[in-house]
Structure formats: C-alpha cells, structure tokens
C-alpha cells in the first residue's frame, strides 16, 4: 500500500480529532465507585423524618442508597439512612419459622408455625373470650399491615386489645392534637422551616434524632442568621449548640414553663386577641367540659408567674421572660417537640400547652407558623395514628368509645352491628401487666421488641414468658423473639411493598425491589394467613398491598383524614403526597385548617378548625402535676434517657450493622461535679438503681447534663437501661415516663 505524505498527514489529523473528541473526551467520564444497574425511589427505614431515598440495584441486590434530590430532604440522609443498604444483609436476619418444642425454638414449616399460632390463639379465646388475646404492633410496619391487623383484631376477633410501640413514643402528642384541634397529626409541614423566624424546640434532640430535618433548620439559620432558636432541654445536646437561647430545664417541669410563658405573653399583651376571640375556646380537663373565658385562663395562670415557677423549672425568671418575648414578637414560630415532651406523666398537658402558645399568639396556619410534633418511627403517623391501630381508636380519627364511630366502621367493614367492642382495649403497659396477671393469654407481636423497649422491662418480661406469644420480626434473635412460642420471619423495607407516612403527613410508597432472605414473608401475608386460620378470611378480602391501600383510601373518604386522591399510581410517580388530598387532581396540603389551602376547610376567613364541632381549637387550663417519684436520699438523682445519632431504638437493627458496632452505647452521662463527689472517673463502672431495677453502665462525666441529672441511651444491647426506667403513665395518653426516674448512682467496686 502506498501513501503520499499529504495523505498520511490527513489520516493522522482525522485520527487525532476522532480520538480526542470520541473516546478521549466525549466518551470519557469519571467512573462510579459502585456500579449500579438501576435506580429506584424509596424511603428510609428508620426514624419519623421519612427521608426519601434513591436505591441502586445490581444483580438483584441493593448496592447503594442515596438521598433523593427531588425529595423534601434534598438529597440528604444521615448515617442510619446510608445504612439502609447494610441493613438488609446483616447476619442475624430471620430466615425460617420456628415453634417452641420442649422449651426450645426449633425450625419448622410455615404451615405448621401458622397452625400452631392459630391453635394457641383459639385456646386463649376459648378460655378467656376475645379480650384474652391481643395484638402489639409497631410504627415500623406499613400502613396496609397495621390497618389489616387492626381490622382483624377489632372487626374479626372482636377485641380492642390492639396497641403498639407508638404508645411509648407519641401517644401524648396524638391525644394532644385530637383534644385541641379535634383531629390528630400536625397542621404544618416541613416547608414551614424556610419561613420560620423562631424555632422553639422542646424535648427534642433533633440534631441527633431527626438529623435531616434539623439540617434543613440549620440551612435556614445559615442563610438567615437572624433566625432565633430556643431549645428547651435538660441536656446540652448537639441541637442546643445551635440555640440562641438554651433553657436547661429540670426534667418533668415543662407544663410549668409553658404556663409561665403563656402568663408572660398575656401580661405583655404579645397575644393575638382577634385570633383568640374568633377561633379559640378555653376549657379544663376534657373537650366537652363547659367553656371558660380568657379571664379564667389568666386567673389560672397567676400561679405560674415566671418568678413563681423559675425555681421549680431550674431556670431564671429572666430566661423564661426572654423565651416568651421571643415567642411573642417573632413573625413566624415553628415549634418542634418529640419524646422529651411526650414521655412523661404530664405528656398530654405539655402537648396541649405547647399548642396553646401557638393558639394564643395566632402562630398557626401561616407559612412558618406551626406546632409540629415529630414522630420517632417511619410509619407511626400513617400506619398507627391514622389507621387507629391503638386500643382506644378506630380508623381515621374515630373512637372505640363513640357508638356512631363504631357503627360507621361496622358498616364500612361489612360487619354485623355491635361486632366492634365498645370497651377500649388495653394500652401498652397495662396490656403487658394483664399478660403478667394471666388475663391476656395470647398475643401477636410484630416488628418490635417490647422485652427491651418497655419501661421497667424486667417486670413485663414475666408476662411475655407466661402468655402464648407469637413474634414476627425480621431479625432473630431479639429479646422478645427469645420468649416466643411461635416465631415468624418477616421481610423488611424494600423486600416488601407498602406505604409509609412520616411526621409531616406525607405518604410514600416503598416498592418491593429485592427478594426477602430465606423463607421470610411480608407482614401482610402473615396477617392474612393468620387471619384465615382463625376463621376471618372473609373479612380480609383485600390481600395485596395495593388492594388494602385502595380499601383504606375508601375508608378515609369524607373523614378529616381524606386521602382519596393519594392513589398508587401517583405514589409511584411522585416523591410522596401530604394529606388531606381528597381528589386525584389535588396536590396535597401543607397547612391544614387554612381556607383556600386545605380542601376540607370550607369556611371563609383566616382559619377553620373544622374537626371541632364549634370550629374553635381549645386552650386547656393545664396544671403542672406532681412528680410521680420524689427524689429521696435513697434515690437522689434523675435518670433521663434518649438516643444518639448512630443508633436507633433498642439497636435491634443498628446494633447488627458492622460499621455502627464500634459506636459506644453503654455510658452514663453524669455531671463532673456529681462524678467527683462519688469519686467516679471516666470509664469506671457505675450502678444506676431505681425503685424498679438496676443497670450497670460506665461513667462519662460531661457538662452536657445538669447537676443531679444523669443520662443514658436506650440503645445498649448488653445493659438493659429500661430495667430502671419508670412505668408510670400519663393519665390520658397512657404513655410511660421514660424521661424521668428517681435513681441512685453508685460506683461499682472493682471485682464485683
């Protein structure tokens, strides 16, 4: 082949251009560290923030989890969110059903396990009637699953013994909202964060427990540095580090503080009198008590002048006044709270007062103005509160105690009139007490670990040992699973399909992306199979997640929970929808009760509290109740419990993720002054003893806690902190007081 020099140069230049613009540059991109075949939309499995995720699959496995840029979380996740990937493949996944034979849990077939479970229940029913059985569920199940369990037990078996771990977590908030506004769940949404000029955070360590929501708050602070943040917390938490005013309150005195703030707001006239006049009523005790006046309220508050309560709260009156002043003068206040307010014997009162501050100042129903309670689990709101899967409730805000509500549900569920029991069932703590006493003989426990998570846990463990326990979980073993008579392995998160709803009432679809391990099945399949064996197959006509969802949508229609418009097709396409959403064209509602925005608010004007018969929200005259446990020379300190960023709840899930196993959970934060008096140094073991039980932890002297207060995490898998916590419950919500127990802390002598 011959070629002239000119031709050679031409060929070379063509090749160089092609090389540069082809594989050299245009085709060249940076490589992915983890190769992904396909991306899918999903939601995080952990807390109540409900972060939207993008899940990468390869060869039928989840290989990557990222934040969804289109989601409310704008691409962010916390460390637990990232660990959704590892979670599916931890070593202790439950793989096959088991039944107890000769005291041991042994592997069996699904048929045999389900038969055994049904037989145990039938025996209990024969011996003690419907109220001898119970269901104890979880805010981690999908809405379809909690709904089906509720229907099976209340409509099929005929017992209202349907409760779950949300009772331990947000029952006080649910009762608070229901009693104040007539309907449960917060009225605002996360978009309020970008409009708030004051964040009032009380009893919530959001920087660790709802970190992605808190990052959004911090974004607001970063871009609008004049934004004020008041944090009320006995500990100097990471959240408190962002505070412009940190009120280091004595645990259990929130009602006094909030009353003092109301007093101060009224004294300085920083209240919205037009709003109070038109949209607020004053009552004491219950929603149907005789209405009182603003003057009655003011007279009531005279005992709560800042000077009078400062000593009780462990604050200065100036701090209280300043907090009230900031609350009163701010253009838009968003308040956040969670377990710190809910988990005490004054939980409902504190919730009511928090909402009252918003009502007195008219800080509601405007962008940035909202009393917002956060939830702790991915589906406590949608799955349990909305579907009414609690002992006192029925779906969509209905109550067991109301005849009209029962009849409505009987009609909707095609049940004979009178099928639903008129007696509220047993809530969490009394339920396990009834197991101890032998009144409840059989229980189905799903996706939760009460043997660790109940307060005064050792006491109720006895009940679980005694009762016929069917435990259904995706992890084995857990403390509760070890007490089971029948254990059923469950799929989790992306191994099954269902709907989650988070703190801002946003419903999300979690699609099934991978196969569950071993023989694990979805909780919905398990409930349906179990219901059939108990002879209630007819009742459970809807058997796929989509069919159950459609049934649930129909039931919500026309109620104050209307989400008829949240269809599966829309959920597949959109990063969630916020209810009320009554039609398929509706974009979802951020601010409830606002005419023009909330489709259910029909009146004209600033706000329409349509769930209340008189259209007025209620400010309750709420007393600061007495402490259930006085500090004595035997138990001179207050134990309060909480969580840290990297772990979640009883660490059933996070404790099994290798990366998180090195994160310490077994320490007791103690004020350095208290530690010095006891002669305890960092890392030394101490025994924390309450009137109920005792736990050994190592000391971590820290200025984070107040003198006289010690703090422990609820996560420890080796040391049971809940052996010492208090099982006193709120008289209205029946939520236990995890945040306050009188304890004695002693140094453990070496060798003991």
């Amino acid at each position, binding site marked *: 082949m011959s070629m002239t020099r000119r031709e050679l140069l031409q060929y070379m230049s063509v090749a160089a251009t092609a090389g540069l613009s082809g594989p050299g540059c245009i085709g060249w991109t940076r490589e992915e560290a983890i190769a992904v075949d396909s991306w899918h939309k999903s939601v995080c499995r952990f807390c109540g923030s409900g972060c939207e995720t993008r899940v990468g699959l390869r060869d039928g496995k989840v290989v990557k989890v990222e934040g969804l840029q289109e989601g409310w979380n704008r691409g962010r996740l916390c460390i637990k969110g990232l660990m959704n990937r590892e979670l599916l493949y931890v070593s202790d996944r439950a793989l096959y059903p088991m039944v107890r034979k000769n005291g041991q849990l042994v592997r069996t077939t699904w048929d045999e396990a389900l038969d055994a479970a049904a037989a145990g229940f039938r025996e209990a029913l024969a011996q003690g009637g419907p109220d001898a059985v119970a269901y104890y569920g979880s805010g981690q199940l999908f809405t379809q699953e909690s709904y089906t369990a509720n229907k099976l037990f209340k409509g099929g078996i005929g017992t209202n013994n349907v409760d779950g771990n949300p009772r331990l977590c947000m029952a006080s908030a649910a009762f608070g909202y229901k009693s104040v506004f007539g309907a449960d769940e917060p009225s605002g949404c996360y978009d309020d964060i970008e409009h708030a000029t004051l964040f009032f955070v009380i009893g919530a360590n959001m920087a660790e427990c709802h970190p992605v929501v808190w990052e959004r708050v911090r974004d607001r602070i970063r*871009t609008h540095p004049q934004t004020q943040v008041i944090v009320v917390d006995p500990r100097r938490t990471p959240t408190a580090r962002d505070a412009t005013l940190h009120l280091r309150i004595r645990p259990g005195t929130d009602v006094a503080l909030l009353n003092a703030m109301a007093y101060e707001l009224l004294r300085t006239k920083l209240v919205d009198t037009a709003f109070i006049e038109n949209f607020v009523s004053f009552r004491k005790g219950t929603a149907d008590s005789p209405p009182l006046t603003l003057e009655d309220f003011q007279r009531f508050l005279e005992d709560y002048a800042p000077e009078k309560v400062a000593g009780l709260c462990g604050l200065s009156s100036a701090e209280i006044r300043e907090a009230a002043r900031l609350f009163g003068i701010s253009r838009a206040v968003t308040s956040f709270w969670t377990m710190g307010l809910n988990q005490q014997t004054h939980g409902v009162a504190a919730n009511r007062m928090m909402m009252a501050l918003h009502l007195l100042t008219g800080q509601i129903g405007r962008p940035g103005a909202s009393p917002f309670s956060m939830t702790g689990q991915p589906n406590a709101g949608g799955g349990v509160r909305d579907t009414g899967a609690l002992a006192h409730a029925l779906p969509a805000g209905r109550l067991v105690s109301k005849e009209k509500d029962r009849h409505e549900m009987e009609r909707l569920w095609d049940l004979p009139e009178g099928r639903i029991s008129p007696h509220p069932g047993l809530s969490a703590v009394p339920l396990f007490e009834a197991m101890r006493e032998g009144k409840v003989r059989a229980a189905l426990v799903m996706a939760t670990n009460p043997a660790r998570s109940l307060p005064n846990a050792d006491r109720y463990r006895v009940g679980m040992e005694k009762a016929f326990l069917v435990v259904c979980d995706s992890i084995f073993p857990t403390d509760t699973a070890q007490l089971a008579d029948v254990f059923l392995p469950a799929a989790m998160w992306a191994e099954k399909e269902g709907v989650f709803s988070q703190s801002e009432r946003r419903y999300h679809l979690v699609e099934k992306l991978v196969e569950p391990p071993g023989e694990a099945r979805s909780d919905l399949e398990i409930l349906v199979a179990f219901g059939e064996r108990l002879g209630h197959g007819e009742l459970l006509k809807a058997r796929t997640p989509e069919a159950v969802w459609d049934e649930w949508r129909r039931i919500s229609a026309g109620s104050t929970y209307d989400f008829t418009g949240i269809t599966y097709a829309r959920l597949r396409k959109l990063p969630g929808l916020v209810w009320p959403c009554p039609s398929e064209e509706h974009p979802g509602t951020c601010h409830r009760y606002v005419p023009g925005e909330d489709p259910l608010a029909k009146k004209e004007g600033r706000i329409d509290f349509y769930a209340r018969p008189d259209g007025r929200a209620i400010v309750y005259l709420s007393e600061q109740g007495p402490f259930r446990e006085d500090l004595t020379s035997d138990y001179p300190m207050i134990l309060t419990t909480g969580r840290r960023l*990297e772990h979640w709840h009883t660490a059933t899930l996070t404790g099994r993720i290798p990366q998180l196993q090195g994160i310490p959970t077994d320490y007791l934060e103690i004020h350095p002054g208290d530690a010095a008096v006891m002669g305890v140094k960092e890392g030394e073991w101490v025994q924390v003893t309450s009137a109920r039980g005792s736990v050994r932890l190592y000391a971590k002297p820290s200025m984070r806690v107040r003198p006289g207060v010690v703090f422990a995490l609820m996560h420890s898998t080796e040391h049971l902190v809940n052996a010492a916590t208090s099982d006193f419950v709120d008289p209205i919500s029946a939520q236990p007081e995890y945040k306050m127990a009188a304890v004695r802390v002693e140094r453990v002598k070496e060798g003991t």
Partner: protein
Amino acid sequence: MRAWTVLAMAAPEPPHGATLGGTLEVLALFAMGVALVGLVLVEFVLKSRMARSTYRWTLLLGLFILPGVALLGTTGHMFESMKEVESCQSCHVMEPFVVDMHDPRSATLAARHYRSGAIPTKQCYACHTGYGIFGTVEAKRDGFRHWLLYVTDTWKEPLTYKGTYPNANCLACHATSPTFTVVESHGALRQQLANDEMNCFTCHGLPHPARPTRAPTRVTINP
C-alpha cells in the same frame, strides 16, 4: 447584628496584585508587540544599515523566538485563567451554579464555602480538580469535554455530575480538622469514605442547587 452574622454575609474580596495568568498574558502581549514592531523596524527601516548576520538573527528572534514566547505565554495564560470562576461561568449553562455560589441566601455547600472564605479564589477549580498527579489532567479533559458539548449544543438536561465525586477533595482540607475527627460517625464510615462508597454530600447537603430547583439550562422554543 452579631459578629458572625457579618462574617457570614460577607463575600470574599477579589484577589489583589499580580496573578500568574495575568503575568503570562502580559508576557505574551509584550512578546507579540516587540516581535511585530521589531520586524517592521528591521525590515523597512534598519535592514540596509545592518550586517547580514545581525539581520538574520533579528529575523529569527522576531519570527520564531518571540512568537514562541508569546505562544507559551498565551497557552499558560489560558491554562491559568481557565481556573477562574469567570471562565466556567462564560458558558451560560454554568450560570445557575455560579450565581448560587455568590448568593448570600443560599445554603448549598458551594455557597457556604464561598461565604466563609475557605476557598478564596478559583472556587470551581478547587473542588472540581482531583488531587494527585493526574488531577489537573483529568480536570482539563473534563473541561475540554464540557466545552465540546457546549459548542456542539449536545449536552443533556439536567446537568449531572458524572461518576462518583472523590471524597479526597473534601478530606484534603477537613480530614485533619478536630471538627471532623471528633465525629464518631466519620470514624465508623472510614472505609466507605476512603473508597468513595459513601459520599460526604449525603449527610452534609448538596454542593449546588438540587436538580428540581434549577431552571433548565437550554432554552427550548416550542413551535
């Protein structure tokens, strides 16, 4: 107003004094000017008064050596000034990213780094060039690819970062700072962060506005 508020709102000052890009530009212009003026003078005025050998040397200088210097100067100038934010911004598709970075009300990582003055100059280049010997080469190749896509009008919407962002770029500054090392989550994820299997942005937020909040960069005219 509190002191940190003022700090947060302040934008970094433009750089003072000479820059390498500017110096190279001056050098190139100077070399070209000298070459042109010299050649005209030598050819039309001084030729008859010069020795033949001097004439050849001056021609060599004016035609080859000084243009060579100018070429080096312009190339160097181009390489250097391409690191400036203005040069990235000159393609209009980059406008939303640069505007966001300069926005005192933006919460993106880019805007926050800009406001804090942590990266006082060449902000795009600082984060978009990998460390190590191939970092600059790769960045130039990326830049050339972007330029080709831009001039041929073949880029795809929405603009996305291709591949995995190297955490090393973040860690180069942050890894040794106590605020980083004290966080136990960072220790727990050491391996994943080192292998880029998890990204700093996942927890700390996006560096630029999220895709749904950005207007399309290409204007489509509907018939």
